[in-house]
C-alpha cells in the first residue's frame, strides 16, 4: 500500500481510539469507534485475497451493527433521561443495551461468532491490531459506565470464559486459537469489571503484554498452523524456550505473570461472596490451558530424535527486529513478584 495512504490509516486508527478516550459525550465516543472501524477495513483487505476480503466483510457487518446499536441505545437514553454524559448513564434498560452493543464490538460470548473467522482471514499483524488496539476503546466505555447491577457482566464473563475455552479445543489454525484465547481473556475482564474496575484495567494491560509477545513470536517464524510451530527449533531456537513460557503465562500458571490477574480476580470474587462463580471461572480456564499446552508440546517435544511434525525449512538470513518483543516477553514471564507493588499502586 502506498505510504501516504498507509500512514493516514494508521493515524486514523490512533485518532479514533483517542477520540473515544477523550470524550464525555456518547456521540463523540460513537464517532471515535466509527473512525476506528472505518480505518481498519482497508488495512485488513489491502492484499486482495479472498480470505482477507471475506474477513473484512464479516468484521464490517459485526462492527457496523454494534455501532448502530450503541448509538441507538445512547439516543434512547437521551430521550428517556435527557443525559448525554457517559458517566451519568443510570441503570435502566438502555445501559444494558449499551453493554451488549459494546460486548458485540469486542467479541464477548454470546456475540462472538464473527471473531474466529475474522481473525483467521487476517495477516498476523492485522490480527495483532484487532486483538489489542481495537479492544481498547470499547473496554474503556464499559469501564466508564460504572455499573451497579452486576448480573449482565457475570453472565457475559462466565459465558465468554467457557466459550473461549471450549471453542478452541478442536482448532489447529493458530489465529483461530488466538481468537478464542482473546474471547476467554475478555471474559475474565468483564467478570470483574463491576466489582473492581482497577482489576479489570490490570487484566487488560497484562493481556495486552501477553498477546503482543505471542503474536510477535508467531510473526518471527510466520507460523499459522500447529505444524509450522514444530519447525521453530530449526529456525530460531530460542523461541522454543520463550514461546511455551508465554503460552503457559496465557494459561494462567504460576510463577508466570498470567497468574496475577486470575489470582486477584478470584480473590475479589470470593470477597464478594461469589465463590461458586469463581470456581466455575477457574475450572473453565482449564479448557484454554489444554490447547495452550498442546501448542507448547508441538513446539518443544517434537524435536529430533522424536518424530518431527513437519519438514525442515531453508535457513535464510533474515533481519529480525525484536526490541519491543524482548521487553514484552520478559514482562510476560517475570512480573509475578511485582504483584504486591501493583496491588499497592492500583486503588484496589
Amino acid at each position, binding site marked *: 500500500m502506498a505510504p501516504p495512504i498507509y500512514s493516514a490509516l494508521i493515524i486514523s486508527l490512533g485518532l479514533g481510539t483517542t477520540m473515544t478516550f477523550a470524550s464525555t459525550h456518547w456521540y463523540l465516543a460513537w464517532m471515535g469507534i466509527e473512525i476506528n472501524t472505518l480505518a481498519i477495513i482497508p488495512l485488513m483487505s489491502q492484499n*486482495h*485475497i479472498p480470505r482477507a*476480503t471475506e474477513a473484512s466483510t464479516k468484521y464490517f457487518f459485526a462492527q457496523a*451493527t454494534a455501532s448502530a446499536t450503541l448509538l*441507538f441505545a445512547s439516543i434512547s437514553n437521551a*430521550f428517556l433521561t435527557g443525559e448525554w454524559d457517559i458517566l451519568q448513564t443510570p441503570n435502566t434498560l438502555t445501559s444494558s443495551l449499551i453493554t451488549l452493543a459494546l460486548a458485540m464490538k469486542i467479541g464477548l460470548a454470546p456475540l462472538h461468532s464473527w471473531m474466529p473467522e475474522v481473525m483467521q*482471514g487476517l495477516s498476523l499483524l492485522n490480527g495483532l491490531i484487532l486483538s489489542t488496539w481495537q479492544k481498547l476503546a470499547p473496554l474503556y466505555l464499559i469501564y466508564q459506565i460504572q455499573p451497579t447491577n452486576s448480573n449482565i457482566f457475570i453472565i457475559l464473563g462466565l459465558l465468554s470464559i467457557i466459550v473461549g475455552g471450549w471453542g478452541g479445543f478442536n482448532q489447529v489454525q493458530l489465529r483461530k486459537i488466538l481468537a478464542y484465547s482473546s474471547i476467554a481473556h475478555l471474559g475474565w475482564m468483564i467478570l470483574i469489571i463491576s466489582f473492581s474496575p482497577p482489576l479489570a484495567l490490570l487484566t487488560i494491560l497484562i493481556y495486552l503484554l501477553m498477546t503482543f509477545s505471542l503474536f510477535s513470536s508467531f510473526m518471527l517464524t510466520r507460523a499459522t498452523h500447529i505444524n509450522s510451530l514444530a519447525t521453530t527449533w530449526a529456525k530460531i531456537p530460542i523461541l522454543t524456550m520463550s514461546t511455551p513460557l508465554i503460552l503457559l503465562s496465557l494459561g494462567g500458571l504460576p510463577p508466570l505473570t498470567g497468574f496475577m490477574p486470575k489470582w486477584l480476580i478470584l480473590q475479589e470474587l470470593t470477597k464478594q461472596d461469589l465463590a461458586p462463580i469463581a470456581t466455575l471461572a477457574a475450572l473453565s480456564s482449564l479448557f484454554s490451558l489444554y490447547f495452550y499446552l498442546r501448542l507448547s508440546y508441538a513446539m518443544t517435544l517434537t524435536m529430533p530424535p522424536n518424530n518431527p511434525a513437519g519438514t525442515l525449512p531453508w535457513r535464510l538470513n533474515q533481519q529480525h527486529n525484536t526490541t519491543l518483543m524482548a521487553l514484552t516477553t520478559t514482562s510476560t514471564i517475570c512480573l509475578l513478584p511485582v504483584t504486591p507493588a501493583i496491588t499497592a499502586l492500583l486503588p484496589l
Partner: protein
Amino acid sequence: MTPAHFAFSSAFMLGLAGLAFHRTHFISALLCLEGLMLSLFIALSLWTLQFDSMNSASMPMILLAFSACEAGTGLALLVATTRTHSTNRLKNLNLLQC
C-alpha cells in the same frame, strides 16, 4: 415512552431484525444497515425539534457524514467480494470455516 421515541425505536428494531435475519444477498444486508442509520438520523432530528435545543443541531449532519462513509465502505466490500467470490450471495462466504 413518547410516540416519537416509539416510532424511531420500532423503525430501528425492524431494520435490526432485517440485518440479523438476511438470508440470500449481501446488498439486502447493506440496505438494512442504511435503514438503521436513517432511523437514527430521524431520532437525532426529532431531538432537536422536540427539545428546542440548538446545541445538538449538528448531530444529524455528522451522523449523515459517518453513515455515508460506512455505506461507501460497505459497497466497496461488496465489489471486492464480488470480484473474489464471484457472487454476492452470502452462502458463498465459506472460506473461513473451521
